[in-house]
């Protein structure tokens, strides 16, 4: 009798343990699934896609405008000699402008980059720095990222093959030595241009620590000169496509 009771108790506890164990596993699994709803899509994934979409929308819009422009010119070119010449002249002017081969003007910002006058003590443990090519390179790059349409440093138009390079005691742009203070003129959306540099912990803040100041002067008309060097190509050849 006693033996039987012990047996019964044992099998009772055994099956109860199994049932509770399965219950526990299921509960855990369930919790994980419901949690997965929150974590399966990391918060920034959706944001990134939204950003990508916004970029694409802008891109498509710009390309559509360009295609419209090109097709008007192509149509015009089909009408007659005079119209064709006119259309081609316009297209060439646009290409030259894009290349930086013509002087342009428009609203924008002029930035004055220089070492802060009279500052001899660096901010908290950093050494004061001179303005280097890297600083200017970053500034110009940031301006393009903010949608600048034409940029010049001390009158040197920045083009597709323009360098900003420390050479001796000067900084060369287009092979021309420049000295501080550096005036960077940029045509574009003034508030976007200024804002990009003035971002919290952005470039302005970063350079400030080293005793370099960036002063932004918003202007309704900024003149950016043309690139004036002769163009000569020794290595590059145009790939002609059969159209």
């Amino acid at each position, binding site marked *: 009798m006693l033996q039987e009771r012990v047996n019964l108790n044992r099998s009772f506890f055994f099956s109860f343990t199994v049932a509770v164990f399965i219950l526990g596993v299921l509960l855990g699994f369930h919790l994980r*699934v419901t949690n997965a709803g929150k974590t*399966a899509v990391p918060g920034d994934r959706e944001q990134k896609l939204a950003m990508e979409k916004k970029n694409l929308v802008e891109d498509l819009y710009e390309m559509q405008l360009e295609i419209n422009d*090109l097709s008007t010119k192509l149509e015009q070119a089909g009408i007659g000699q005079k119209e064709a010449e006119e259309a081609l002249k316009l297209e060439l002017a646009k290409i030259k402008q894009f290349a930086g*081969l013509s002087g342009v*003007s428009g609203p924008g910002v002029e930035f004055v980059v220089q070492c802060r006058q009279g500052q001899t003590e660096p901010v908290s443990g950093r050494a004061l720095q001179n303005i280097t090519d890297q600083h200017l390179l970053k500034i110009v790059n940031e301006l393009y990222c903010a949608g600048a349409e034409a940029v010049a440093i001390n009158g040197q138009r920045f083009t597709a093959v323009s360098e900003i390079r420390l050479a001796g005691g000067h900084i060369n742009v287009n092979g021309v030595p420049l000295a501080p203070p550096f005036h960077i003129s940029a045509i574009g959306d003034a508030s976007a241009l200024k804002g990009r540099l003035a971002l919290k912990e952005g470039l302005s803040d970063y350079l400030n620590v080293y005793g370099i100041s960036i002063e932004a002067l918003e202007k309704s008309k900024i003149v950016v000169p043309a690139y004036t060097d002769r163009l000569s190509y020794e290595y590059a050849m145009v790939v002609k496509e059969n*159209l």
Partner: protein
Amino acid sequence: MNKPSKTKNLYLLIALACIILGIVFSVHLRAARSVQQNESIRKTQELTVQVEQMKKERDVLQAQLTRMRGQLENMLTIGPHASPGKEDIEPAMIFAGVTELTGSGVKVTLQDGSAVQKPGDNPNFYLVHDEDILKVVNELKAAGAEAVAVNDQRLTAITGISCSGPSIRVNKKALVPPLVITAIGSPETLEGALKMRGGVVEFLQFCGIQVSIKKLENIAVPAYKGGIKMNYIAATDIGVLPVSEDENG
């Protein structure tokens, strides 16, 4: 007498456990299903589809744009309406970046470092950043590169290189690693400039980034395939040719 009541008890308990198990199971199934219909997942899926579609659309437009631009360029240089100073036109188009080019040059490949990180190391240190590309490109330009592209994006006068999260954007398009910078110019000069002592390559390798430079006799640099936007440049400036017209004339 004790035995039957004990077994009854046992069965009751097991039945109870089974009922609870059943309830949990059904709740679990429902939860699993509702997760799929979760708002954020649905939105993300929707966005993914949209983005994919727009990318396809962009490719179509890109092809169309390149074709049309090519037609106009052909007219400019060879057609019956070719402008008088056509020797000046081709260099201008190369300079603008609207034509595909070939020539000798170098191919620089940058890859995130593969070194095993020690705990406490900053993982950022081993990644290729927008700044690194900017440095390499600047050095290539200083060494006389005639045209530069990063992956399939031609660098133009107004190209920005930016960093958004883990991806690097050139001409506002996200690039897929490995990052390949192609430049047309004298292969020796370009390579030499990068490999200079205390130069860019040394710096990048110090940062743990894998750099490989290949000199090539024939390298292709693609054309810029985007739109040319001029929203802020005064319209009167477009259409007149202040510099070159004088030269041509």
